Every structure is written in C-alpha cells, then in structure tokens.
C-alpha cells in the first residue's frame, strides 16, 4: 500500500499480514481530505489503496445491512464473511422509545400509503404539502408549546436551513465545539463569522461573545451525541442574553426524552420559553425521518421563506409523516414509555458502573463506552459482534485521538434481561482487552 510504503512489512524481515493491515490503520479519513496538486481526482488513488486494506480491517463494521426492523434484537449481515449474524443485541439504533416498529405506526403508514401514495412529489412550498404534513406540524407545535413548527426532510437540513436562513455575512455564530456537523455546515453556508467555544465552558463563550458587536447566535445541543452529556443551559442562557445573543438548541437526542412533558433539555431546565429556536428530529425517539424547527410564528414565517434546504427539497414522504404523527400520539398517550426508558438508562448505567466500564460524563440514553485505544477499536468491535452485540465504533476524527469509543443507545424497548446480558458481554470483552477490571462475574441481576 503506497500510503505507508516505508513501513510495509515486505520491507522488513518477518513482516506479517497483521502488520500490513495495521499499517493501513495508522491512517484515517483526515489523511485524504486535503491534497496538493491540480487534479480534482488526485486523492482518489491514494484513498482507494488505503480503503482496500482498511475497509476489511475494520471500517466494514459501519453500515452493516440489518435484516429487519431496528428492534432490540436484530439479524445483521456480516459483509466481510457474507454470513447472517442472528439475534444480536441491538445497542446501535436511535430508536429510543421503540416506536419505529410499533404495530399502530405500521398501520398508520399503510393507511397513508393507500391515501397518498409514496412520495410528496414536490417542494413543501409548492405542491409537496399534504394534509398530513399540516396535521403533523400543528400537533407538534402544540406538543412543543410553540406557536408554529416547520418540517424539514432531515434533521441535517433543519439545522442547515435554520442557521443559514437566519444569519448573514457579518453576523456572529458561536457554537459549542461538539456541535453536530449539520450545525457546522449551516454556519459555513450562512457566511457569518464562525466561532466555537470549549465544550460547556461558559467562560470561553463569554470571552468570544464580548468581543463582537452585531447580530449573534449561540448554538448548543441538548444531549451531545458522542458523549451523552447535556448542555449547561442555565449558564449558557445567562451569558448569551447578557450579550444580546439569540440561542438555538438542537434537541435531536433530547426531544421526547428530557423535561417534564418530554419537550427536551430546555424544558428540563425550565428554560423552554427563554430559548429562541428549538430544533428536533423525527428519526430518533419517534422512529421516523425528518427534522423540525419550533418557535414563534414570526420566526417560522420568516424561515419558511428563507430556509433553502427545505424549499429546494421535496417534502417528507406523507407515509413517513403519517408514521411520525401516530408515533407522536402514542408518545403522548403513553408517558410510561419515557419512564421505562429512564429506568433502563439508570439500570444500564449502574450495570456498566458495576463492571468498571468507562462511560465518561454520560447521564443520558446515549452512553459512550470508552476504550481509548484507537488502534484496537475495530478489533474490539468485531469481538463484541462475535459475542452477540451490535454497536457502532466511533474513532478519530469523529472523536479526539485516544478517545475511541462505542456509542451505545439505550431504548425503552430493551428488557432488563437484555440490558444485563449486554452489560455482561461488554464487560467481558473489555476485560479481555484490559480496558476494565476483572469484575464481569460480579455483575448482579435483578431478573435472575
């Protein structure tokens, strides 16, 4: 492989296939992002050479084909061997409330298919707006306690459209350094001045805010998707308002989970009315697809006219909208779903803690299983899969160096037995790799 030519094992006596593969794994996507030269395809050949070795060495673990719904146990096709792996415990899907495959949701989807057909067949500002879209927006606005809601084709396009729709060249946007890529891309698209403050460090936010006069927007997330911790919203709001900044909170991982009624982290802190812009997705807790922004009517009216990512996209499928609407109805009718999720979160955290599994500062249903070993994260991922767990590795550059991890998603649908079995497998595998102490035999079970 040319990218690591001087370290290739064939250059050294006793080099092995393992050595060759590990040399490929010294590199990552960042090595192929920029490159000098005049040919726009200059990076393709070096990348292809690297990919040919690194994909089977670990990257194949991403995007493995699931054979059915994202339930708590799933069948997965191992693309390396071609074999179907049966009955893996699913800790990878975002299906936090288990709503994506509920029978009532499926029925709503089937009914909508009969009524509307498959797609919206148009931009939402032209012909792609159907009655079901309006019903969903109104129901969602009522749930969020806001005057209006605007629906986007994806959560990504919601951030893109809202940020770039509102902010202009010469304005200032300051985001938490761990904000999602869609936030960063929205900032780029807006052409506003962009700054990032240290994760949850309000003093750094203030240092950057006070140097700027003009329109300012501060962006945070409710639950941070790689670490599972939450925004220190009261402090962020205080500083932001003191300097005249508007605040946007992306509650992709916290809507329908946090707060007294499930509106999100803003409600959790009693700041629902103070936050100016509320972003959310349908793809996580409601098990559908799409994103939304909730806020005042003037805000939504303005964004309807300036959110290009929305009105230059086809509206979300009415079929999907119907499934989301039914999922929302179930969510509101069954508060026990959230209660079960939080009980599961608490129980899984305690099991992992008991096993000495490092989970950082997570306090939510997003749990990073920190392995810190960038070189072996894929190997550990394979071991977890062999032992019966489906969970996604996260490595540099998605997280900083030496902060490789597995991102675990806990669902209300997981049974206690599944959580216990999952914790036992994770602890046992991490013990083998010296990541947590030998305690797996001591993990207790309340379910026998």
């Amino acid at each position: 492989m040319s990218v690591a030519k001087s370290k290739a094992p064939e250059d050294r006596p006793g080099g092995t296939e393992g050595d060759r593969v590990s040399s490929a794994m010294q590199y990552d996507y960042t090595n192929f992002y920029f490159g000098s030269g005049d040919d726009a395809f200059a990076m393709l050949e070096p990348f292809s050479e690297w990919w040919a070795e690194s994909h089977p060495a670990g990257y194949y673990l991403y995007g493995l084909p699931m054979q059915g719904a994202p339930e708590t146990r799933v069948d997965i096709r191992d693309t390396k061997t071609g074999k179907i792996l049966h009955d893996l415990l699913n800790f990878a899907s975002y299906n936090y409330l288990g709503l994506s495959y509920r029978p009532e949701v499926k029925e709503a989807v089937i009914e909508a298919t009969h009524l509307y057909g498959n797609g919206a067949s148009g931009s939402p500002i032209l012909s792609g707006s159907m009655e079901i879209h309006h019903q969903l927006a109104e129901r969602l606005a009522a749930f969020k306690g806001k005057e209006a809601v605007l629906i986007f084709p994806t959560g990504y396009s919601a951030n893109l459209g809202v940020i770039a729709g509102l902010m202009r060249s010469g304005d200032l946007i300051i985001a938490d350094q761990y904000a999602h890529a869609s936030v960063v891309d929205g900032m780029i698209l807006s052409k506003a001045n962009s700054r990032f403050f240290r994760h949850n460090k309000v003093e750094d936010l203030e240092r950057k805010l006070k140097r700027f006069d003009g329109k300012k927007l501060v962006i945070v997330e409710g639950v941070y998707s790689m670490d599972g911790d939450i925004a220190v919203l009261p402090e962020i709001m205080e500083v932001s308002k003191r300097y005249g900044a508007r605040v946007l909170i992306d509650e992709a991982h916290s809507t329908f989970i946090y707060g007294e009624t499930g509106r999100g982290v803003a409600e959790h802190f009693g700041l629902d009315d103070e936050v100016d812009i509320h972003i959310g997705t349908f793809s996580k807790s409601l098990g559908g697809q799409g994103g939304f922004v909730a806020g005042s009517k003037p805000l939504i009216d303005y964004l309807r006219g300036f959110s290009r990512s929305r009105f230059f996209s086809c509206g979300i499928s009415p079929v999907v909208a119907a499934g989301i609407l039914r999922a929302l109805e179930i969510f509101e009718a069954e508060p026990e779903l959230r209660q079960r999720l939080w009980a599961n979160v608490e129980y899984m955290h305690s099991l992992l803690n008991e096993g000495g599994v490092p989970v950082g500062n997570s306090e939510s249903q997003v749990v990073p299983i920190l392995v810190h070993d960038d070189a072996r994260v894929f190997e550990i991922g394979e071991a977890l899969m062999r032992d019966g767990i489906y969970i996604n590795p996260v490595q540099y550059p998605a997280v900083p160096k030496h902060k490789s991890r597995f991102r675990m998603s806990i669902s209300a649908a997981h049974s206690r037995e599944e959580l216990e079995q999952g914790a036992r497998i994770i602890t046992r595998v991490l013990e083998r790799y010296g990541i947590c102490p030998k305690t797996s035999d001591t993990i207790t079970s309340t379910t026998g």
Partner: protein
Amino acid sequence: MPEDVGHYYFNNGVNCLFEMPTSDARRLLPAHLQPLEVQHERSILSVTAFDFYKGDGGVYQEAVLAILVPPRLEAGERLPKAALFPFLVGTTTEPSRREGIDRWRLPHLMQDIEVTFEEGDECIDISVGAGGDPILEMTATSYKFEATEMLFHTFMSDDEGNFVSHVTMEGEGYSEHEFERGSLTLYKHEMTKGLTLDEVNDYPFREQWLKQGVEKFTSLRSL
C-alpha cells in the same frame, strides 16, 4: 524517497496545535499554499520548541511558529503525518540561525531568543523570550511514550522560489494526545505580530512530545 542530508538531535521536541483564525493563516502563507481548517474559519497554528544537543546546527534551542497546510500527495509515495509552513523561526545562536536561513530558507527572527524547558510531572513548561521580553509560554502534557518515526512535509518560500523538504522525526519516546490539557500564552512581540493574539485558542487540541529524537531533512526540492 530523497536521502536525508540534515540531522539535528534533540533532548525534547515539543509541539502543540492551536486553533487560529483562517484569515490570519492565509495572510501568513505564500500564495501557493492554503491553510488546513480544523473547524470552519479555524486553521491550525503549530508551536514547536526544540533543545538540540548536537547535529548540523550545533547546540541550540529553537522555537518554530508554523501553519498546517495540505501535504503534496503522490501515488506510490509514503503518506506524511502532516505538512506545515514555518512562518517564523527563532533560535538561540547565530550559527543555527544562519544554518536555517541559508540551508533551509526558513524565515527567522534576526535576534537571539531564550528558550527554557522545565519538565514536571507528566508535563513540560516552555518559555520563549528575547532580550528580556516574553514571546510565549506553552505547557504540554504527556500520555504514553512510545517509539516513533513520522514523516512531515515542510514547505519553505523565499525570493528565489518555493520549496519542500521531507522531514522525518524519530525518537524513542513519543507521546501524542488530544485531551486539551496544555496551555499557551502569546505576548505581543515581533515574532507573534502576524497573529491576532486574542483569536488564538489558549489551549491546544493536540499535544505532542518527543524525547531523545532526531530531526532529519531531505534536500530542498523546488516547486
């Protein structure tokens, strides 16, 4: 791979990477180079300090301010860890300064600087000053030390043209991490005048520390 022609042996080579405004980075780079961005509008300031104990420049200390840029990737060539353009180098001796200017075409501060290295428990404090005026203070922290050999592309530019050298860093003890534990204080000085000091992060996103190492340059290649 060209042959190594310059060798510089050091006790400590400490490098930290900091976010800085892309607008500053563009101003400091020659027209043929573009800055990398770690975030939108945030490029990368590289601050490095060496204490050389033998080699082609003799015994001296050095501080290097550089901007990270894309490497020149060629199919079949070894991929470098990174590429950089040093926009100002300070050294503690006249001979090492002449070596850097004449041989490697590196822009230098034209006065001696003072560099101190103070190693503590899993950290090293570096102070750089000149004539009693402070230039910068940097603290780097360690993780695990392991043997390493890394390739960098170093770009140079002067009135006679644009150049690149392949620089290899080898050593028995190399630590690298992104735990954001280090720090940087920059002072107003001739050496830092190209930087908007308030806009450079005062903490590194990457900290690298190489002990008992050697820096090897290949001959300059014209671009």
